[in-house]
């Protein structure tokens, strides 16, 4: 991973700023969501003239001239609204060649019952794209360094401390109302709005002292790039008792494996030799007494339900080899911040709500892109009506309130999936496969679920 990062990085980019400089928006965290927010602010004529600063510990990335052969290990599934955002930012053209589209998705469990979603059922050509995180980040960094960009990049740099203004306006009148940020090289700067885009272990969230509700489950994610017996075109996800295992199409005919399991199990799998790991993945996908799942309802109704193609079970391909840079494990955390904003501070992306291991594979970043879009629009609206961009009332009304509901709903859905798929016995297990059968054979219900999956909540 470090070697790949070094290969992709062209040059370190630092701007030296005079001490105690003042900016309008300081974004801490130059990942996918932070960079997207900076690019969105830069693209809007209303917010272009704001002094925007992007801070990150790592130097900026650059898109390689030739797309590498293997996928990098961290991939994300991008939904249609995210692709629209990237298109508006002007980075999708360079990324579409590297992204792997898929038009159907199949979800099944350890027992009978499965659902297969097809994008053509709702008149769409593709359901989503799978793209490496590093390429997405590199494209956004290239956009931010292009000619005509007014965003200032301080990469690498680390913010070590922040003085945040108090909540009450009377106290702000006495103590001054801007945020003062201390950097690791000793300099400091003041900013009108501090945006925390620094991931699930966010420092900005800690400084803001927001309460977090999170699960302490010891769950880890094993990611690997694999070659399969035939090119995989479907996003496959099997909910095992230990966690979901996803096989996502990647470019070049390869596939990306994301296996959520207890961290001990993940460590054991990572230690296996490559061919054994490939066999383990295949057996996890195809094993079990109820494999391949036979839909009881489908059998009863026989050939009456004509849409046989879209309801047939697609057997996953055999995983032949683990390619690329080898498997890695990441510890999964599920955190939801109690508030997203306070005077002069806003959290976006994983800093506000980080992914739940039982969610649909790798699509937490879509919520983050939604956050970036809504926050950029809120800041533009504040500029248009002469409001203070750091005002807590404006941030709460225009950003937190619209985002709270979809983010909570997505995390609740992930919790619900876990509650459905964890039990191995009892009424839930029995109804599970029947429920999946019903969904699989009811076009209206499937289309509704498909629209949610493709466009978010």
């Amino acid at each position, binding site marked *: 991973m470090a070697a790949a990062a070094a290969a992709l990085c062209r040059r370190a980019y630092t701007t030296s700023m005079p001490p105690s400089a003042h900016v309008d928006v300081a974004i801490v965290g130059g990942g996918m969501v932070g960079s997207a927010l900076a690019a969105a602010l830069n693209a809007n004529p*209303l917010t*272009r*003239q704001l002094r925007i600063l992007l801070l990150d510990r790592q130097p900026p990335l650059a898109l390689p001239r030739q797309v590498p052969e293997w996928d990098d290990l961290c991939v994300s599934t991008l939904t249609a609204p995210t692709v629209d955002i990237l298109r508006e930012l002007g980075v999708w053209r360079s990324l579409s060649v590297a992204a792997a589209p898929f038009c159907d998705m199949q979800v099944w469990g350890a027992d009978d019952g499965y659902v297969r979603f097809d994008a053509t059922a709702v008149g769409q050509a593709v359901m989503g794209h799978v793209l490496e995180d590093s390429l997405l980040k590199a494209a956004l960094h290239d956009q931010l360094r292009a000619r005509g960009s007014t965003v200032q990049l301080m990469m690498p740099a680390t913010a070590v401390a922040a003085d945040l203004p108090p909540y009450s306006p009377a106290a*702000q009148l006495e103590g001054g109302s801007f945020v003062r940020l201390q950097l690791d090289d000793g300099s400091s700067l003041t900013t009108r709005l501090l945006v925390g885009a620094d991931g699930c272990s966010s420092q900005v969230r800690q400084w803001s002292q927001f309460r977090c509700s999170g699960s302490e489950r010891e769950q880890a994610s094993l990611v690997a790039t694999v070659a399969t017996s035939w090119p995989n075109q479907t996003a496959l996800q099997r909910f095992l008792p230990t966690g979901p295992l996803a096989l996502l199409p990647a470019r070049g005919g390869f596939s990306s494996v994301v296996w959520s399991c207890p961290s001990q199990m993940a460590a054991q799998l990572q230690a296996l030799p490559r061919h054994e790991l490939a066999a383990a993945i295949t057996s996890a996908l195809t094993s079990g007494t109820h494999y391949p799942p036979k839909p009881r309802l489908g059998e009863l109704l026989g050939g009456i339900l004509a849409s046989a193609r879209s309801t047939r079970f697609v057997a996953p391909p055999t995983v032949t080899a683990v390619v690329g840079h080898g498997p890695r494990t990441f510890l999964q955390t599920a955190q939801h911040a109690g508030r997203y904003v306070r005077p002069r501070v806003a959290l976006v992306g994983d800093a506000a709500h980080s992914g739940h291991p039982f969610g649909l594979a790798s699509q937490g970043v879509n919520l983050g892109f939604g956050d970036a879009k809504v926050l950029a629009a809120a800041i533009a609206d*504040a500029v248009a*009506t*002469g409001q*203070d961009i750091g005002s807590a*009332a404006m941030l709460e009304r225009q950003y937190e309130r619209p985002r709270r509901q979809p983010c909570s709903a997505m995390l609740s859905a992930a919790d619900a999936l876990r509650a459905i798929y964890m039990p191995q016995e009892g009424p839930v297990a029995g109804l599970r496969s029947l429920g999946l059968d019903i969904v699989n054979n009811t076009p209206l219900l499937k289309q509704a679920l498909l629209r949610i999956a493709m466009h978010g909540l």
Partner: protein
Amino acid sequence: MRKPLSELLATAGRAAASQTLHSWLISQPSVACLSSLSRSSWAASADFSGTAGSIPLDVPALKQQQPVPVPSTVGGAAAGGAAAGGAAARGAALPSPAAAAAAAPAAAAGGHGSTVNQQEAAKFAALAGEWWDPAGPFAPLHAMNPVRCRFLRTALCSAFGRDPTQPGPLAGLSLLDVGCGGGLLAESLARMGAHVTGIDVNQGGIATATAHAALDPDLHARLTYRTASAEQLVAAGECFDAVVASEVIEHVASIPAFCSALAALARPGGGVAISTLNRTPRSYLAAVLVAEHVLRWVPPGTHDWQRFVTPEELAAQMEESTSGGGGGAPLRLQLLSGMQYNPVTGAWSLGRDTAINYIAWFGKPPGGASPGVAHG
């Protein structure tokens, strides 16, 4: 049906003192009766019933609450004369303590001008320190601020030929905010690029505004606050590109004099923006009954429904105030918009319904004598 009813009510209305009428209104939730009666007491001193395009006095029309279209000519002299007569007659026909108190201290205060209503001013003096708390007593103004700024941005950009899609479109314009209070509107206008002078008779509000403006180095240079009244500035011969009086006109003692002062302070080619509450049954329900007594958003007694001005009356006042004295072409109503509050989402929006809150832009035609010192 219409004429006999209004005559009957006019005689009844003259007899009823405004204060007892007001307390009777609060105790009687039947709004349709109320509005026709109180309109009569206002109309008792000024005969609006014969004026074309005026508010219909029959109850079914009131119940429909259609937004009344702005008439192109509002029975010019009749309404103007009626309004002027109304201002003088108000002191006689409405023996409310507020009006009586206004006459005496206004004369005694000497130099503060005749439009300052001391009792109204005192209501705001008590809350001076709490202007900038978005959850405090001025929360409704904070919530409404973005919407009125959006209207002002559109109106000022179209009047001065600026591009509203660019940041800082009001750069180089000199604006006067009359009754600026704690500086809520003045700061927003300054953020859009204008040089804003904010005036208020309330010393505490000016102090709060100055302290808050000092927090932001970008704004500090473009904001000036003074304790003064509009009449004092007119007497000093000052002149601005545009004058804004937002949520002020319902608190002044004499509306015609206030309108004249605002018109005199705007240079030819500029204009005056006024936002206030309409005097309709719905505005009584919303601004007095619900906001003051039920929800307690503002302390009871903040708004006197009698003082509310309808868009037609305001347009008539602005036309009459410049054509009457002092020279200069009359200000014409060019943009009118209602501001509606959605109680479910808690958001304000601009719309066509002017029944409760509205904001209007009056343009002063270019050319004609521009008196005194112009502010660059």
